[in-house]
């Protein structure tokens, strides 16, 4: 009798333990108590971030995205929801970034001389010797996200953000936080009241020791939940395995070489041509700056193309999906608006809006619709 009762009790405890285990596993990892760190004022914290030396580290970045923008096939990191990026850097320009999705993966390896891009879905490797096209693109990022499908590196992102908004923002240190098991200061950038923006604040957790951003969260008006949060869930500081920064394409993979001269010149010329035609300009400054541009109607198709993977021409099966009329697609995603400036499509996300006029004018910014229409009206 007793033995049976003991057995039942033990087994019942087992059930409880199992269920509790499920609960623990389902719970997001607790942040842990805020560490006690020496006081630091906002100014010197920002400075130390801007002057921090790149460190060697490897880690996993959790991307929590609830922007409300449409899913981008194959790159969950840019789509709504939670995803991960794994990255390693030796602090001397070599880096490896992995973007897992489902049972496939895109890997980018920069071995200092060549940028290798691997896509397991197509079993293709793209080899691009360091040219000038890549670095050129970066400073343009501004407040935005990676435009070219590149991961959201919290380091560069945060640094850009800080520099950009200092003039128009209130910068404070709001206590400390624990991120990826490291102590960090919480740097908060709040737009000044005169800024007409949909953003409420940007919170950056800065590693107390390395002074690199460990986490960036963008919060919008009217919600406590971050619209975007990019942060390390795990980080190992120190020298990383050198093998990580080399890439040897496997024999079975198709390797596409982006030759330095011919195609790049063509690309450049193309890019310059487009750039000239588009003539982007910034209206306003700080939080409410709006980028406005005018695309020739036929370039709307071209706009789509650079975001796509290279080598699309030899993928006839996927071509069908790619060739859907982007105009029609955009109209589906956004809502039709009109005003004194004309007619167009407004695509909204939590952190900003894009307005596409039917005549090819385009305006985007982290601002409400009204500010966009004002800005687009200035472009003739």
């Amino acid at each position, binding site marked *: *009798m*007793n033995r*049976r009762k003991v057995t039942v009790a033990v087994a019942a405890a087992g059930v409880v333990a199992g269920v509790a285990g499920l609960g623990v596993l389902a719970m997001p990892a607790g942040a842990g108590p805020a560490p006690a760190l020496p006081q630091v004022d906002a100014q010197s914290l920002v400075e130390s971030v801007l002057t921090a030396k790149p460190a060697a580290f490897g880690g996993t970045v959790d991307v929590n995205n609830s922007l409300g923008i449409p899913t981008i096939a194959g790159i969950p990191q840019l789509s709504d929801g939670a995803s991960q990026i794994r990255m390693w850097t030796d602090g001397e320009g070599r880096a490896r970034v992995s973007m897992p999705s489902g049972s496939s993966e895109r890997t980018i390896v920069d071995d200092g001389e060549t940028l290798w891009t691997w896509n397991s879905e197509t079993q293709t490797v793209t080899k691009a010797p360091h040219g000038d096209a890549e670095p050129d693109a970066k400073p343009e990022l501004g407040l935005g996200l990676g435009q070219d499908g590149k991961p959201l590196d919290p380091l560069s992102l945060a640094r850009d953000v800080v520099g950009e908004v200092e003039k128009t923002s209130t910068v404070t240190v709001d206590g400390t936080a624990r991120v990826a098991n490291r102590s960090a200061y919480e740097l908060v950038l709040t737009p000044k009241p005169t800024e007409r923006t949909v953003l409420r604040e940007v919170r950056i957790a800065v590693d107390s020791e390395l002074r690199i951003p460990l986490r960036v969260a963008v919060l919008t008006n009217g919600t406590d939940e971050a619209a975007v949060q990019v942060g390390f869930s795990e980080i190992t500081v120190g020298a990383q395995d050198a093998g990580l920064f080399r890439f040897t394409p496997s024999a079975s993979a198709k390797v596409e070489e982006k030759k330095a001269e011919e195609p790049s010149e063509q690309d450049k010329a193309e890019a310059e041509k487009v750039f000239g035609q588009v003539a982007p300009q910034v209206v306003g400054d700080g939080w409410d700056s709006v980028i406005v541009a005018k695309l020739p109607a036929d370039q709307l198709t071209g706009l789509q193309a650079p975001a796509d993977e290279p080598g699309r021409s030899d993928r006839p099966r996927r071509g069908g999906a790619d060739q859907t009329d982007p105009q029609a697609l955009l109209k589906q995603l956004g809502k039709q608006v009109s005003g004194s400036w004309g007619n167009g499509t407004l695509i909204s996300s939590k952190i900003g809006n894009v307005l596409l006029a039917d005549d090819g004018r385009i305006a985007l910014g982290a601002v409400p619709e009204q500010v966009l229409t004002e800005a687009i009206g200035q472009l003739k």
Partner: protein
Amino acid sequence: MTTSTSARVEPASAGSTPVLAARTRGLRKTYGNTVAVDRVDLDLPEGAVMGMLGPNGSGKTTTIRMLLGLVRPTEGEVELLGRPLPDGAAESLPHVGALVEGPGFHPFLSGRENLRRAAAFEPLLATGSVKQAVEDALERVGLAQAAHRRYRGYSLGMKQRLGLAAALLVPRKLIVLDEPTNGLDPAGTREVRKVVHDLHTAGSTVLVSSHLLSEIEAICTHVAVLHRGTVVAQGELAELLQADSSALQVTTSDVDSALNALRAARISARPAEDGVRVELIGTTAPAVFRTLVQADVEIQEATRTRTGLEDLFARLTEAGESDHLSTVDTIEQGAR
């Protein structure tokens, strides 16, 4: 552990009560609102061959299952080979062989493989002697020739025999056989009787449940009658029958005056062939004779009737409710 089951039992034998192979007290089992078994106090003396009698649904199988620790009683206690169940099951059950609710085997295995599997889980079998024990058991029930055949293809009788063989894998102290002759032809039935007889001779205790009265009468030393979930009679078969044979067949030509005289003396009697039948309940044979003689009834012959088990069983299980209760009391007193 060096105490054997019999070692535990022995101290009990020093007392005046007989050693019991199984003993239940106040056993009760309910399934929801249905009472399957209630107030079962069963005493199974060591060395006895006890027949458990009862109509279908009288609680025989439930009682046996509780006896074997398969079913947990709602109330009451079970002692098996001197050890309480279920805590003592590990010590007592290895000495118990059972064939409950028909033989249970895997259809895709041969008879031999089935027995090997059963033998693998027998605590008392040394690993080295498993094979021999299986062959011996097959031989004993006459299945040696069919041992290689799949159980699926066995006839009902062969299945029954294999079940018996599984119960006989190890020399047992107690063997519980639930309807062992089910599906057996007369020859098979005789074999079972022989097996039970042999077990009895070898000193094992046997508990046989059956609804076949003739079978019980033929092989049992003791009997327990179950009716509506409770034991209505138990004891040595001979004693029970003796106690039940408490009727006098009085042959007389003067039936009417005999009946009148006996009824006046509050003695239960009814007309029978060639005379009257007198129930010796609450009275004795001399008293009956005295009454009849005083009434000037001519007694040509008086014989004590010997009822068979069938009569006893019929009276115990077919009697009306109120009648039944008083009968039980009487019988049980008579049995003790």
